[in-house]
């Protein structure tokens, strides 16, 4: 479609408004994390400070053990989201390719699981895990994160697999490929954009999860980043400089994962290339 010059100007203005609204908060938080304490609460507000400092960041990593939280969060999120993505590939594929008696019930239950508020589950989950002696355990939390992601990932994976022509797999199977072989050699590579989206989505959710982690983790060496950030504000008053630095550090891995994923979305590969 050809677009007029008028439209292009309109688009440029609108895109700029969206951009400003999106980046001002993050600019402000980065600025806050770099300000010296005297500038932080200065009035009138300082927009372009003359002195910048990294002291908030060094505080995070020296006094607040942020490197431990970072490692905990990274391992927990990466492992949980890889497992939930893998499991959703299996279940999503079966739901996309086969018809069976209880299929509608299974899909219905997957949707229903999305409606249950996390706080209804937490007390029963907590007593389950405390009976197993698995409180204050990152493994237990990982299992719960796989559980949180499994249903939605399956629903998404099914959606992506449905769009991939069945004929390609069938051809591979006639050539001697097993069902699992056909899935991983033919279907998964074709659905890679969708699978990347599922993985990123799970990773970001796990990385950011606060309420379950805050309930299940109670010692400093097990904390994840959201729990640590939460502890910064529950103590008397909020140290805005340190908290801002923590927010900035917490943002880095999700931005990397996000950049990786949005390449797939922007390229338009998600759906268009795969029409039967």
């Amino acid at each position: 479609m050809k677009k007029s010059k008028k439209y292009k100007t309109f688009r440029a203005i609108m895109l700029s408004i969206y951009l400003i609204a999106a980046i001002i908060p993050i600019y402000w938080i980065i600025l806050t994390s770099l300000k010296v304490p005297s500038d932080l609460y200065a009035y009138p507000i300082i927009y372009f400070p003359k002195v910048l400092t990294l002291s908030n960041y060094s505080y995070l990593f020296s006094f607040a053990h942020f490197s431990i939280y970072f490692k905990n969060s990274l391992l927990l999120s990466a492992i949980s989201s890889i497992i939930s993505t893998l499991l959703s590939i299996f279940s999503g594929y079966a739901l996309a390719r086969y018809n069976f008696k209880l299929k509608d019930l299974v899909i219905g239950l997957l949707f229903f699981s999305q409606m249950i508020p996390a706080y209804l589950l937490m007390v029963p989950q907590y007593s389950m895990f405390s009976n197993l002696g698995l409180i204050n355990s990152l493994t237990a939390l990982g299992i719960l994160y796989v559980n949180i992601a499994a249903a939605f990932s399956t629903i998404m994976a099914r959606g992506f697999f449905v769009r991939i022509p069945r004929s390609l797999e069938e051809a591979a199977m006639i050539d001697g490929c097993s069902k699992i072989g056909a899935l991983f050699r033919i279907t998964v590579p074709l659905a890679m954009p969708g699978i990347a989206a599922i993985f990123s989505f799970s990773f970001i959710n796990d990385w950011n999860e606060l309420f379950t982690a805050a309930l299940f983790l109670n010692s400093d060496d097990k904390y994840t980043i959201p729990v640590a950030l939460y502890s910064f504000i529950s103590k008397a008053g909020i140290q805005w400089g340190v908290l801002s630095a923590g927010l900035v550090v917490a943002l880095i891995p999700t931005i990397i994962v996000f950049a990786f994923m949005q390449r797939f979305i922007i390229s338009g590969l998600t759906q268009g290339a795969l029409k039967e």
Partner: protein
Amino acid sequence: MVRLLERRVLHVRRGARSAPLFIFWMILPVILIISIFTFYPTVNGIILAFENYSVFNFSNIHFVGLKNFNKILGDPLFWTALWNTLWWIILSVAFQFVLGFGLALLMREPFKGRGIYAGLVFYPWALSGFAIGILWSWLLNGQFGFVNDILMKLHIISQGVNFLSDPSWAFFSVILVNVWYGIPFFAIMLLAALQSIPEELYESAQIDGAGTFSRFFHVTIPYVSSTIFATLLLRVIWVMNFPDVIYGMTRGGPGGTTNILATYMINIVYYKSDYSLASAVGVFIITILTVYAIFYLQLTSKHGSGEF
């Protein structure tokens, strides 16, 4: 024809009987995990709602009938939270959707630096709701906040507004932040859907003399409608169960004016430690969402749920 032949070959080679077992093993892990860690605790949580389990009463737990539900229905804070939940969902989702769809439409045709632009405008999606809440409570701070300062510099207000502690502003503020947070979700989903629309559809519509609006309503909307229905369904469910932003900003205060059912429930757990009472609120939430989902799916079933 060829595909039919292939299917027959397949049928002969693999044998139709091996499929049920294969399906079973493929689905089993997910079903098992969700059954043990979601549905089993859900049943227990619902049972809890009819008992008297709290931090002050661990030993003498017994069935108390509808006592918890009556207690909640008699709490004015519950009614505020329920009413707020309705507005929270309607306003948040409506503005997230409209602004997100608008952004997707603006971004659908390539322009220079679109990848970088997408990264800069979509990043809120990668932040945690709680972090967003904290971040914005700093921006909206009554004394040192960016928003107040800008509004005063522009002479829109003459003195600082306490966005989060003034009851007449607080609820408006948390909704505004939730809208800001949710725009990228709709933009990403709808952009992906928009990019799959074949260009030929627009060309033939243009030949038929369709104008911009007509093309939008007769080509674009029908093509992405399944994405729209699916994302709206899920978004309403998520936003209802999404206390994170509010918790980062106000914890439901001042005086319960920014409570939605989800934060009301959390506050019962944190401040009263009455787990049975909190579970009763959870049962309300599940009931409302189930009724909504059934109603919604009935209403939209003719459009199919192919997207998900």
